[in-house]
């Protein structure tokens, strides 16, 4: 709990505050496009970093080849605009098969 709960509550409170922006500030404030772009780009960078470390590392070490290979399969499917469920199943399935074949 603790860290999980703190994370959920912080995220929930912050997100609700963003959502209240409209009803509270409507007509008085407009988010500059430049700020909007920077926030979007920041979120993209964090997501890419999360997925890269998540795909390649486990703790402080290399995660083995099966996982990044599966993520790559999922990435190719996403690139080809495959449906969401197929991306999930493709990535997990490829990793599972590689592990079954003995790759770490």
């Amino acid at each position, binding site marked *: 709990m603790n860290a999980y709960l703190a994370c959920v509550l912080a*995220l929930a409170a912050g997100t609700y505050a963003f959502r209240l922006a409209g009803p509270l500030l409507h007509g008085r404030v407009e988010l500059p496009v430049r700020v909007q772009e920077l926030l979007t780009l920041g979120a993209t960078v964090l997501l*890419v970093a999360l997925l890269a470390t998540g795909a390649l590392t486990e703790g402080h070490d290399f995660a083995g080849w099966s996982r990044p290979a599966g993520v790559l399969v999922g990435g190719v499917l996403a690139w080809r605009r495959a449906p969401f469920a197929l991306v999930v199943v493709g990535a997990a399935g490829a990793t599972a098969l590689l592990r079954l074949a003995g790759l770490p």
Partner: protein
Amino acid sequence: MLRGMRSPHRTDDPADRTTGFVRLSDLPSGVLRDIALVLAADFVVGVSFGAIAVAGGLPLWVPVTMSLLVYAGSAQFSAAAALTGGGGAVAAAATGLLLNSRTAAFSLAVADSLGRTWAARLVGAHLITDETAAFVMAQPDRRSRKAAFWISGLGLFAVWNVSVLVGALAGSALGDTGRFGLDAAFPAVLLALVMPALRDSGNARRAGALGAVIAVAATPVLPAGAPVLLALLGLVAMRRRPVRPVEDPAAEPVTGPAPTSSGTPS
């Protein structure tokens, strides 16, 4: 589906005002069908989220509570990925908040459609998502915008929370998840989430690539969570773009693939 969007007209025509409750008949059947399709797509995404989160090692209450209180697909996926992948709680919350900052723009765009009372505004605010904003902005008049907001908003909230619970229960029944390769699912989902941004923006590709290299290189030496936050240094790879024609910031995200076509969580 979401093509042919109109920017919200702000009219004070009394005939255009809404009073009382929203009815299903306030929307054309085509729009109701579109909403139903998005509900079905989100059900699949919600089940995946619940299952992967629990399979990744989170207790069942975490994805379930997150879905009720945070209620934002991509932020939930990234937060759960950070929590299960050793990214740490701070990185999890920071990424989620940055992702959800765009909700402020949607909120400004749909504020007219929530209703007149403060109760409606306070409850309605929680239901603002990419999808509800897209549905609202696609409607031509005030009455149907309000109907689109509440019908899609309440429907999505119900479907999302039920599907996440179903997925979380299924995920707890799976047992050894390494065998199923589910640890590859989170990074793959995040990749699917950023794909449209990477496709469209050179800045996103440059900053993302540099950030990823920094984070991976720092992982062996820094404590959990720090490498992902350090990745923000990747923003230095950003280049100023030439000035573009003025766009409505709230209208941008819905120019991507419609939720029905990709089913990507938002």
